[in-house]
């Protein structure tokens, strides 16, 4: 008798990085020692028994595949409990679930990674993947927007990406802030400012719904086609396996048929 898919398995917190005032990154490893075989874009279900379960994008898989990272924003009951956790604590894990970015179809293309806030979490493994086989891809552009300088996450990575001559990195914040020398403006505006070119290019977007909506509108203005844009969508998910029902967009379940979608496959059912 196989175990029920909704039963979580134990994982231990190996490390905690405080990314911003409300986002922490947890480095986890499975208690059974198994590797986590996951592709960029996939997610796991995280449980704290007594406080529920929710889905989180895998934000990094470390080289040994035995450790992986989740960036979690403190927003509800479960995430509040997770933010109280310490190194060595056990939490529940199921997955990975969902589809992934078809990165290997993007060889030799320019890649625009466009992320807003915690939306950068599922995009970081895409960047990691491209950097690990850098020669196969064309120019890499990273556009990262956050509300304020305090909301900027992955500061270590940003430093490395900034120094990497093969990456053009743009960071922006919503409103002027003392001491900030980077760009100011919402992500869609910056897309326009830097004139993201659709020429032999792929755009990958993730962020708050309003950012995605207007970023896509701007990309259309710049002559982008829906089949060159990918996004990873979020809806409330519970089961992660296409059964509990709530995450549908049209006939597709975000947890099972997504979370990664090429835009032309969903435009009909999303008001974008």
């Amino acid at each position: 008798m196989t175990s029920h898919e909704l039963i979580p398995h134990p994982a231990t917190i190996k490390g905690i990085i405080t990314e911003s005032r409300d986002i922490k990154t947890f480095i986890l490893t499975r208690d059974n020692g198994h590797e986590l075989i996951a592709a960029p874009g996939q997610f796991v279900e995280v449980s704290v028994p007594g406080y529920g379960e929710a889905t989180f994008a895998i934000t990094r898989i470390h080289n040994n595949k035995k450790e992986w990272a989740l960036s979690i924003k403190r927003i509800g009951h479960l995430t509040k409990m997770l933010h109280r956790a310490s190194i060595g604590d056990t939490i529940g894990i199921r997955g990975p679930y969902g589809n992934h970015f078809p990165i290997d179809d993007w060889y030799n293309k320019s890649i625009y990674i466009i992320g807003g806030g915690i939306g950068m979490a599922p995009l970081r493994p895409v960047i990691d993947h491209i950097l690990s086989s850098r020669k196969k891809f064309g120019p890499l552009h990273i556009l990262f927007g956050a509300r304020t300088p305090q909301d900027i996450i992955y500061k270590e990575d940003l430093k490395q990406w900034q120094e990497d001559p093969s990456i053009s990195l743009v960071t922006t914040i919503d409103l002027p802030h003392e001491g900030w020398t980077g760009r100011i403006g919402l992500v869609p505006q910056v897309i326009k400012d830097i004139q993201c070119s659709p020429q032999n290019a792929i755009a990958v977007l993730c962020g708050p719904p309003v950012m995605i909506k207007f970023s896509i509108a701007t990309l259309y203005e710049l002559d982008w086609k829906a089949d060159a844009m990918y996004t990873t969508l979020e809806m409330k998910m519970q089961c992660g396996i296409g059964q509990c029902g709530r995450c549908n967009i049209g006939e597709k379940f975000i947890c099972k048929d997504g979370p990664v979608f090429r835009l032309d496959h969903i435009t009909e059912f999303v008001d974008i």
Partner: protein
Amino acid sequence: MAKKWKRLEKSRIKEFLNELHASYEIWLPYLEEDKWRFKEYDIEKEIDLPSSFVHDSIKRLFLPRRKRIMEFNKHKKWPVVPVSPPAANRLLMGIHACDGAALQYLDRVFIDSPYKDTFYEAERNRTVIAGIQCDRMESMCHCTDRGISPEHRDGMDIIMSRTKNGYLLQAITEKGHTILNNRILAETDEQPVKKEWSDQRYPLATPEAFLESYSVDIWRDVMKYCLTCGICTFGCPTCTCFHVADELYKNEGERVAVWDSCQFRSYSRMAAGHNPRARTFERIKNRIMDKFAYSFLRYGQISCTGCGRCVVSCPVKCSLPETATLISNTIKQKKPSLASSDAVSRSKPEQ
């Protein structure tokens, strides 16, 4: 030559069930306060199987309203104890065609999946379904508009038909044969009487046409009085949505999957507050589209078997099938020819 039937005299039905009761948990509909509901077999009570509409769908016997998944104790390091599914043999008697077809739909959702629901599968495996043909259709019944008839036997192990002084029975599956292999039943040349069934009560547009209606401007005006109470989803034998919750009492707790409804505002509301279907008409539209189009694209079967429970249970008389028909008619008027190939090809998302 038509397949033979076996005869069960009404006077011997309890004798028959009492024998089975030694090795089967038995459930069947009983009439209580004018409503037919599935209950466990009671030796004391008279048995008279329903000739038509049963208020209670059999969904809850396969997907309990509150299904325990695991137990835990807050203080133990890794506290999770999985709950075992029930294993005792079970006989469900007196199920109509609409619920039989609904079971087939549930199988597609919970068994024909890379992530099988082992609880549901265990409930299915332990259960023998003895269905009964309806004698008549009530005013809200519309299985005939959903490609089913009251004589349909899909999803059943045994089919029964009422005669003057008892029932005719025929085994459909091996499981059914085991039950009917009993000396109380006598083989007979009698055949159930064929009936004509009416249709066109709540006709529907095709799933493809429904998809085309997504942006048609009729949705805001349908079911205006809907309270979004969700009773139609709970009564529906093919509504499968559930909510996973942790229930904690002091340090002991359980994780449970409880019935949920797409009509509830909280259903899709995310932790940060964003709600993609915050408005009532958006949720009604999603429900109707899911019933008559999305489920077809996902599983090759629409998720309505015409049982009519949503019609009966609605406290404000917003009829879902009537609305579906109204929308179907509106689409037909607006778009006489509908391209279907695009819509169907979308059923297989590119990976």
